[in-house]
């Protein structure tokens, strides 16, 4: 390109983080936490639970006992690892595919089922009370995260807001506006984009002209890092670093978790309409659970007996949750008014009475 000898006034770089290869071998020395077998197996257990839960949720949907559901198949490492790096007092702002993060933070499986089963009580969950519910309008939770982080900063609390969204959300102004603001004020917020290659049927190459999503942070004035999102060790390390930096007042970070959605977008979607079975099959070789298991088994941190026991545990836990979900008392219709306002205005109280059959309105 003819540049007329113009000086370069800025350089930017984007790094990529990976430790575990698809076969479970190590690409570079692991971060210190990886010597903690308890933590690694906990991450493994959480991913396995999520996969089992997803399978059951889809079965429930197919048999008419659950509404539309979004599976995490293939990208379990992302939400589980990010949540594992958070403290209880941090605030999570998840997208609708971040079940793994909610479960890690203490939300009960039956509460998640209740949400996808069409009941708002699922959002009155057992996780940290200030965590946000799943955000359905894509990326619109990013400004909330900036607002939450602003409250932390104003009150001088050492807390971090962690905002999760997908690759499609990075095309929205919401996300850029939030990141821009976070950059201006060095907010304690971490943005995690789960780049699973597909925003329903739109592939990444039609989503952005950027080489990476991580570089979007550059425009907002902070560090964006690309991470192998199917490598739970890399994801955990990146999340830990980013959250620590945010907590220490170094400002926001952006993590692009490069992974792959092996499943359909939701139970209402048929991904075979827009991508080939061959493509998906090839990606199965990279998926995060087998990868970590290979590493753990190779390190003698995990055994066949433990695997069998875990399978039984997951089955039992999921089945028990399903039972509780199916046994949930139905809400009376008029309760749809109960949390509309702090105090229900009389004009709507009349509608509530009408719905309750009290024949007033």
């Amino acid at each position: 390109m003819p540049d007329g000898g113009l000086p370069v006034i800025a350089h930017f770089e984007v790094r990529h983080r990976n430790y575990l290869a698809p076969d479970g071998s190590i690409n570079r020395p692991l971060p210190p936490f990886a010597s903690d077998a308890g933590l690694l197996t906990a991450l493994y257990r959480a991913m396995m639970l999520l996969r089992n839960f997803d399978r059951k949720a889809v079965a429930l949907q197919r048999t008419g006992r659950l509404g539309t559901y979004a599976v995490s198949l293939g990208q379990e490492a992302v939400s589980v690892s990010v949540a594992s790096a958070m403290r209880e007092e941090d605030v999570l702002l998840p997208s609708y595919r971040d079940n793994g993060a909610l479960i890690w933070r203490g939300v009960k499986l039956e509460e998640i089922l209740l949400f996808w089963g069409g009941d708002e009580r699922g959002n009155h969950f057992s996780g940290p009370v200030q965590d946000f519910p799943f955000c359905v309008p894509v990326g619109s939770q990013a400004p909330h995260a900036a607002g939450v982080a602003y409250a932390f900063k104003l009150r001088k609390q050492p807390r971090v807001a962690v905002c999760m969204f997908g690759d499609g959300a990075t095309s929205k102004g919401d996300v850029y506006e939030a990141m821009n603001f976070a950059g201006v004020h060095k907010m304690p917020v971490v943005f995690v984009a789960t780049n699973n290659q597909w925003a329903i049927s739109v592939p990444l190459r039609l989503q952005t002209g950027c080489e990476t999503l991580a570089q979007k942070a550059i425009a907002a004035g902070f560090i964006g890092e690309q991470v192998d999102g199917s490598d739970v060790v890399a994801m955990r390390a990146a999340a830990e670093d980013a959250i620590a930096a945010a907590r220490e007042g170094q400002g926001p970070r952006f993590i692009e978790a490069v992974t792959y959605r092996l499943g359909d977008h939701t139970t209402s979607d048929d991904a075979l309409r827009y991508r080939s079975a061959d493509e998906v099959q090839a990606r199965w070789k990279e998926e995060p659970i087998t990868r970590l298991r290979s590493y753990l088994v190779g390190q003698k941190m995990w055994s066949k007996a433990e695997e069998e026991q875990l399978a039984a545990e997951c089955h039992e836990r999921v089945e028990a949750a399903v039972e509780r979900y199916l046994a949930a008392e139905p809400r009376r219709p008029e309760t749809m008014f109960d949390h509309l306002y702090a105090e229900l205005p009389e004009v709507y109280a009349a509608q509530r009475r009408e719905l309750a059959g009290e024949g007033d309105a």
Partner: protein
Amino acid sequence: MPEMTLVEAVNLALARAMEDDPDVVVLGEDVGINGGVFRATVGLQARFGPERVLDTPLAELLISGLCVGMAAQRLKPVGEIQFMGFLYPCIDQLVNHASRIRNRTQGRLTCPMVLRTPHGAGIRAPEHHSESTEAMLAHIPGLRVVIPSSPDRAYGLLLAAIRDPDPVVFLEPTRIYRAAKGEVEDNGEALPLDVAFVLREGRDVTLISWGAMLKETMAAADALAADGIAAEVIDLATLKPYDEATVLGSVAKTGRCVIVHEATRTGGFGAEIAALIAERALTSLLAPVARVTGYDTVIPMARLEQHMMPSVGRIVTAARKACQFS
């Protein structure tokens, strides 16, 4: 009591709210050192600091979304959108988040935020600066929509909006920001939300309006009085939820109703009031309910805008016609 303009009363309420409650945060474009384009926030940053009076980037969606996040942390954010025509990027946040986060989470998270914006035409402003789309906002469940029509009500209602545990959109009538003057006591007392104010009692016809248009409506009531027609004038003040009882009570008394708003007619808030009266007070009616509104067109730029807005003459004509019916 000192006499002041409506915009000065807004400023006074903001200062009082910030003084009383350290959780109140004012944010928006140019609200800091510049004191807002209408000077509604003048002096606040010097007094309360740049962290509580925050100049945001030029991003309206962000302002409303930040408010949701702050409010979920139990701050009391008061966001400013410079003109109602720039409010539309906030609609997603208002509809999908602010107004329903309490309901979605069954009360686990709440949204005690206020979004202030100037409302209405008549200041010879550029395009997109003269909007009055309050009906769109009043359609949103879980939201409150409030519009004052005098300095004392601006002060009292804004304090109420800030103290309210739910999200409030506070529409400030631009045309009377400085034209409306009145005594305001800085006593920290809020006025009730969801309640209409009867500005003038009368037995012959009910005139209902809100915001700046009450200026013409009151003038019309004066003109009608000269003809021997006693008009009752209601300032609706809160459009969502609105005071149905006061409306119905007044129509039961007068049997006639003229609704006045500068917003376009179709689907305007006047239609809601007319429907209420048709459903609940039909037998009281001595004449059809009339609407005097803006026309169903884009709000014209400065040279024609006064022809779109209801005039005293149009209101008087409609009220006379109602009184002469049957």
